[in-house]
């Protein structure tokens, strides 16, 4: 396969070769093949899936998340990507999101014998856990429970929770999504000469959303309780300040 790929760098054999190297544990070589495949076929979900599996094996969960998310962008029905995201979510303790991806993967690959057992395991773990408010939480103290969230740069929950407009607890995938947005906001601001990003404001229905970086390694999101909330920005600034002080005190 290596010879075939050397003769024809655009050959689809990279999918087989990359997976074989990954299974052999030669992750450095597998990564080279996977990245080359993505460069040749940037819109092929399978290429991104291969890259994600290698990244995941390397313990680079964020990069694996990005790659699997990209795979789904090009093919929303890619079972491997759903399976991978389910694994990442389970590893991060985000059981609702994990279960959703496993269910979708099962729909797409009903013959996969492992998926049914995985779903049962995720469901059992989800039942055993309930959300708790941490002691001393600045978000809880501010009375914004249900509409504020504080996460780290990997999307891990530090404080708070956000309810969907329907009033149900929004899924655990918010943290990684927020972390991904923060990463791109930082990159965008830097590359466009906008300086350091200070805030992200989203306007729309059912209300505004404000995002801040209380510390260099945390992200705060506050959602508006109503369609028009002119003071939400100021409220987000106050919460960011309180959250930053809280996090510093915990260090």
């Amino acid at each position, binding site marked *: 396969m290596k010879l075939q790929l050397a003769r024809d760098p655009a050959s689809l054999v990279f999918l087989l070769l990359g997976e074989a190297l990954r299974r052999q544990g030669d992750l450095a070589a597998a990564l080279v093949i996977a990245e080359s495949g993505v460069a040749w076929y940037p819109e092929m979900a399978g290429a991104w899936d291969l890259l994600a599996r290698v990244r995941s094996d390397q313990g680079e969960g964020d990069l694996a998340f990005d790659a699997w998310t990209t795979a789904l962008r090009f093919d929303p029905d890619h079972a491997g990507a759903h399976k991978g995201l389910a694994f990442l979510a389970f590893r991060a303790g985000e059981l609702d999101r994990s279960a959703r991806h496993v269910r979708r993967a099962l729909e797409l690959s009903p013959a996969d014998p492992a998926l049914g057992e995985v779903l049962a395991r995720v469901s059992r773990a989800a039942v055993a856990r309930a959300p708790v408010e941490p002691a001393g939480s600045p978000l809880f103290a501010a009375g914004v429970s249900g509409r504020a969230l504080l996460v780290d740069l990997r999307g891990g929950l530090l404080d708070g929770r956000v309810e*969907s407009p*329907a009033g149900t607890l929004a899924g655990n995938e918010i943290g990684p999504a927020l972390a991904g947005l923060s990463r791109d*906001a930082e990159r965008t*601001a830097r590359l*466009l000469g906008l*300086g350091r990003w200070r805030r992200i404001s*989203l306007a*729309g229905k*059912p209300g505004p959303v404000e995002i801040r970086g209380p510390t260099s390694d945390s992200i705060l999101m506050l959602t508006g309780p109503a369609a028009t909330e002119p003071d939400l920005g100021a409220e987000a600034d106050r919460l960011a300040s309180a959250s930053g002080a809280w996090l510093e005190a915990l260090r």
Partner: protein
Amino acid sequence: MTLPELLEPAVRTSGVAGAMVVSRDDGLLVAGTIRSQVNGSAVAALASRLAERVRVLAEAMGRAEPELIELWGSEGTLLAAPAGAGLLLVAVVSSGADPEPVRRELLRLTDKVA
């Protein structure tokens, strides 16, 4: 009316360094008026990526995609408004300028561009 003509009022707004229409799928610049200090292609690519991140976040929250995205930096602000037909309206506003006029202009243009 052409896209550059549609964008003209936004570009004339005080403090606006550039306004453009971007293809969301590939991050390519479709049309725009850009001052020399702004790299239009970079703005297009980065703004479309940012909009995609926001879309994913909104989906995770069970909300509709926002009508307007604002990224505030210490030296300027990027505004992006998803329009129909896979397009994104984007403006870059200099630091210290009031973004409200261009905010209104972008929202007014989203229907027209689509």
